[in-house]
């Protein structure tokens, strides 16, 4: 206790020369005085996120003002959907989030099925769950070591990306593509498991178990990483509702937020799992890293469980109308699933024609990377900026679409 207090005292600085708030509470930052420097961070990406830039105003090496600028990846998806039939939207929609495209596929498929009352066979549901979980661990394998990567520990990233590639190989075997699988189609899935797939997947999972032990020694037990991450980027648990924080970031703040548990979809209610919650609500970079670490560990367990419990064979496609002019009756819905970054939802409106009226995506980064990040970066050190940004699992393509 006394130790940590000492630590706090040491880093306390004299703030009298820093910008002071005026009567309205706004900071007085006068760029002409030469005291402040404006630094553009990005859009060339610093860690493993996409293109996004931060406009930082610095006083010394401390950030006094931060603004997020997005739009470097804006493709106007929601506009070009107006010109696509529902089925043509399908290859487009996966490109919304590059590292984890399967949640997009699932959400679009689920909203189409809900609006036009299509039943999905049980085997297809198990396959969907398997693919979603594989996508989760493949994204976490890229993201988790990057927490160390932003502090200069590049080795973990090399290991992680290699293992991710092994999972991508399994994807390729199952779906024919490495990144954009387009496997979860409306009505079911696109194929069955090839022979020997299970065995190869399980051997990859064993590799990942091994990797987790090494990663813990390399990154999480590392003294430098601990020193820099404990206490940095602290999210006050009372902000969770105010800022709409979801997923691992909320779980690090002591809230149990997991769509798989709260609103079970697919066959998650038949699985036995418990998302990891940081009960001490430490809510700093270290705690978020640890939550992701446990997520990855549980994700591996979960895939083993799915492979154990799933039926060996079955129907893969339910009864769907002619896919080329699938008219969806008027209606609107909101479906959600849990991606590795948190709640991921689609708001879909149909107007009775073949073309969607509106498909809108709610990605977790939309709140994390703009309102929350701008708040967290104030008073942070410039060297922690990319660490904080990556620890929130920022993914710009889903902000701007």
């Amino acid at each position, binding site marked *: 206790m006394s130790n940590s207090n000492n630590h706090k005292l040491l880093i306390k600085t004299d703030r009298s020369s820093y910008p002071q708030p005026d009567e309205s509470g706004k900071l*007085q930052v006068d760029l002409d*005085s030469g005291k402040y420097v404006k630094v553009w961070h990005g859009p*060339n990406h610093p860690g493993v996120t*996409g293109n996004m830039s931060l406009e930082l105003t610095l006083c010394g090496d401390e950030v006094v003002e931060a603004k997020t600028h997005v*739009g*470097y990846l804006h*493709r*106007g998806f929601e506009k070009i959907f107006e010109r696509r039939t529902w089925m043509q939207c399908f290859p487009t929609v996966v490109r919304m989030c590059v590292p984890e495209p399967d949640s997009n596929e699932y959400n679009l498929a689920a909203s189409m099925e809900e609006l036009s009352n299509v039943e999905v066979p049980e085997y297809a549901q198990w396959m969907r769950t398997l693919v979603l979980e594989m996508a989760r661990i493949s994204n976490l394998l890229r993201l988790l070591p990057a927490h160390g990567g932003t502090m200069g520990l590049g080795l973990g990233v090399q290991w992680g990306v290699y293992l991710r590639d092994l999972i991508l190989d399994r994807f390729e075997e199952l779906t024919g593509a*490495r990144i954009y699988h387009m496997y979860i189609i409306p009505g079911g899935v696109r194929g069955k498991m090839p022979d020997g797939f299970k065995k190869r997947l399980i051997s990859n999972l064993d590799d990942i178990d091994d990797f987790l032990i090494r990663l813990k020694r390399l990154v999480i037990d590392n003294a430098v990483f601990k020193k820099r991450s404990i206490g940095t980027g602290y999210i006050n648990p009372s902000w969770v509702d105010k800022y709409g924080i979801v997923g691992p970031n909320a779980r690090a703040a002591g809230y149990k937020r997991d769509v798989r548990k709260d609103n079970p979809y697919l066959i998650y209610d038949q699985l036995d799992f418990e998302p990891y919650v940081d009960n001490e609500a430490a809510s700093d970079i270290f705690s978020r890293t640890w939550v992701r670490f446990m997520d990855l560990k549980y994700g591996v367990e979960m895939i083993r469980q799915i492979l154990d419990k799933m039926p060996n064979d079955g129907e893969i496609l339910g009864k769907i109308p002619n896919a080329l002019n699938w008219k969806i009756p008027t209606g609107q819905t909101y479906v959600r699933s849990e991606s590795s970054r948190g709640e991921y939802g689609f708001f879909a409106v149909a107007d009775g024609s073949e073309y969607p009226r509106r498909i809108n995506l709610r990605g977790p980064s939309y709140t994390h990377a703009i309102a929350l990040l701008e708040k967290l970066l104030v008073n942070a050190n410039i060297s922690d900026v990319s660490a904080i940004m990556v620890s929130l699992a920022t993914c710009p393509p889903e902000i701007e679409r």
Partner: protein
Amino acid sequence: MEDKKTFIDPDLTKRTVIGPNGEDITVDPIQDYFCDALPKKHEPKRAKIFENFFNWARAESIWVLGFGTGCGSIELYPLLTPRFDAYRFGVQMRPTPRQANLMIISGYLSVKTLKRAIRSYEQMQNPKFVMALGSCTINGGMYFDSYNTINRLDKYMPVDVYVAGCMPRPEAILAGFEALKKRIKAGKAEGANLYAENFETYKANQKKIIRDWNMPDYNW
């Protein structure tokens, strides 16, 4: 209390320094200095055998600007990690355009990114090459009708190699590097000269879509 206007950092004041040849040079640390002379065409000046040697050296040290622009940048991680390991071929990432000689446009370019990409391209030193990944850079790909992504990259900057696919696999990108090397060794990768020769056309095309052009025409 000190008036905030009168606080001026002594390091940031305008001052006169004496140059190497004894002339006076005024420096203003707050102002940006850059050269805005238009690009020039570089003719090969040396004997053929030396040119070939230089081209061989250039081909074997491809330094990529670490600027991922589209979906394709996700395949650049496997490319640079142990599985595919592009370092074997002398390919490595550089953080700044000043040290790079290859720009990889890894997918669709929105208008906002195009502005940054052009600026980075112009800041790269000669000789410089451009490699474009994916169908988006060839004809617009699946965003051919989008209001915010360009359709053809070669209207805005000279492209040396295209790698087709949506998205191209790391093996395909490695093959692209091989193709680029062949072109450089044969002395055909003259993108920078093409840019200098047709500078007006390229600028006109760029200015057509970048509405708020608030930077110098050419700077490096």
